[in-house]
């Protein structure tokens, strides 16, 4: 069970990202976290596993307080929380198996991870998970050789390899096509139910969220403005969360991505020149 109590986050830049957020998530419950860009969704789930430090408030996982831990305590806590990322965040140049096994990093000593000599039990678990997500044939492929949907499956396997007690999922479908998005969402929700895992899923796509999750929390400007079952999310609630103009904002983000890709080609040319330049 996850309990969040009056969580507050103010960035150094002055942005007040979270304003006293409180809720609890029961075992096996899948929560969809929706809200416009900049509402604090990413900050919230990163405050839970302390990739971002909260300013005030408490987070408790199975009655153990997470906020305030440090050093090896923090490591042991993090390994109990699996995380799935927006752009997959796989280590692109490592193989699928290495990526999945990296879920054990919080458990094994450095020499084992360095030599890639994981305990056989970990390897067995990794094989079983790859079977479960349907990637048995891609074990030794490099992660950057996979399609988007396959990469996200590796991301799921990596998170489950941690034997998590909680799953944090950050925009799992943002870079996927509609069909793959559904498959991935279905897979995530299935495994959560199989393992009685509580999960928090940040998601842009409201209808997709309604299709799969048990409960929806709407965030706006760092505050919870909706908390209830998916069918309770009517037009009024949506306007409360999103307002009217935010759809434009999302479109602008897409255009930015396209520009980034153009820049990448120019970047390659510059890099070669730099090598020559400082020779």
């Amino acid at each position, binding site marked *: 069970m996850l309990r969040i109590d009056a969580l507050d986050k103010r960035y150094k830049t002055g942005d007040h990202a979270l304003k006293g957020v409180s809720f609890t998530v029961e075992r096996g419950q899948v929560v969809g976290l929706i809200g416009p860009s900049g509402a604090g969704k990413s900050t919230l789930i990163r405050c839970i596993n302390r990739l971002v430090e909260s300013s005030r408030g408490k987070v408790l996982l199975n009655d153990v307080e997470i906020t305030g831990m440090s050093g090896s305590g923090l490591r042991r806590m993090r390994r109990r929380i699996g995380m799935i*990322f927006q752009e997959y965040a796989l280590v692109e140049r490592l193989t699928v198996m*290495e990526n999945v096994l990296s879920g054990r990093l919080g458990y094994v000593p450095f020499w084992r991870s*360095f030599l890639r000599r994981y305990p056989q039990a970990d390897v067995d678990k990794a094989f079983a998970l790859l079977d479960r997500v349907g990637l048995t044939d891609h074990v030794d492929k490099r992660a950057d050789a996979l399609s988007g949907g396959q990469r996200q499956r590796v991301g799921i396997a990596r998170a489950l390899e941690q034997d998590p007690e909680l799953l944090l999922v950050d925009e799992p479908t943002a870079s996927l096509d509609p069909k793959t998005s559904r498959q991935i969402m279905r897979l995530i929700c299935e495994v959560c139910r199989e393992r009685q895992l509580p999960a928090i899923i940040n998601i842009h796509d409201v209808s997709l969220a309604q299709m799969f999750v048990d409960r929806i929390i709407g965030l706006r400007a760092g505050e919870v403005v909706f908390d209830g079952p998916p069918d309770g999310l009517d037009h009024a609630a949506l306007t409360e969360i999103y307002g009217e103009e935010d759809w434009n904002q999302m479109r602008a983000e897409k255009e930015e991505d396209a520009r980034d890709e153009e820049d990448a080609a120019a970047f390659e040319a510059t890099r070669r020149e730099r090598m020559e330049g400082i*020779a």
Partner: protein
Amino acid sequence: MPVTQTPSGPVWTRRTTTEQWASWAGWLAVAVLFVISWQVMNTNTIWSFVDDAPRQAGDLLSRSWPPRWSYVGNLWLPLWDTLNMATLGTLIGTILAVPTAFFAARNTTPSVAILRPVALFVIVASRSINSLIWALLLVAILGPGILAGIIAIALRSIGFIGKLLYEAIEEIDESQVEAIRATGAGGWQVLDYGIVPQVLPAFAGITVFRWDINIRESTILGLVGAGGIGLQLQSSLNVLAWSQVTVIFALILVTVIVSEWVSGKVRTAII
């Protein structure tokens, strides 16, 4: 605004008047700087020597040709030394450059206040000083021989590899690192899984590229006594044996072309 309204209608010019003036002023400054530099540089130039250059070149050519090909037999051992200087120098330089780069990169340095500036200074100092100057110093300290050459090459390589590597480290995709950290990995594990795989191809490319440059540089380190084929070049120059110099240049050229080819092959194989 490039468009101005005049009684006879709008007029378009490429730049505004101020921009135009700034651009002209820039060019003028470059021209003036060039003229002054030219004057100062040539205060002691003896122009009759310069006028004489074509004749000198012809003379040089006639003395260099035909090359004394039999001399090539004396060059194999120095060539071996040259290759060793470049390779061992690159190896040692790389070993020293890797920690320097990690200290210098903003996202991996253990201490922003002390270690990072020190590492950046090491990199800049190593880069500013050409390997020939390093060799000059080291020959004075260690005596002539290829040890001085190896260390000279190594010291110069630290800056090159260190700079390119630390920039590669600063450019990595942080989300991959974040994902590894989220699994509960410790510092060294984050380095091993999150950072090293991302910079490994860049690192290999940089190292091989530097090795290629080092082969070139090590061919001339002998001029200041650091061993290798440059030593032969120096002694041939001292006795004005230009026909031997031709042979040495030819061998250097072949070596450089081969090393460039090898490094190109290796780099495409890695990336």
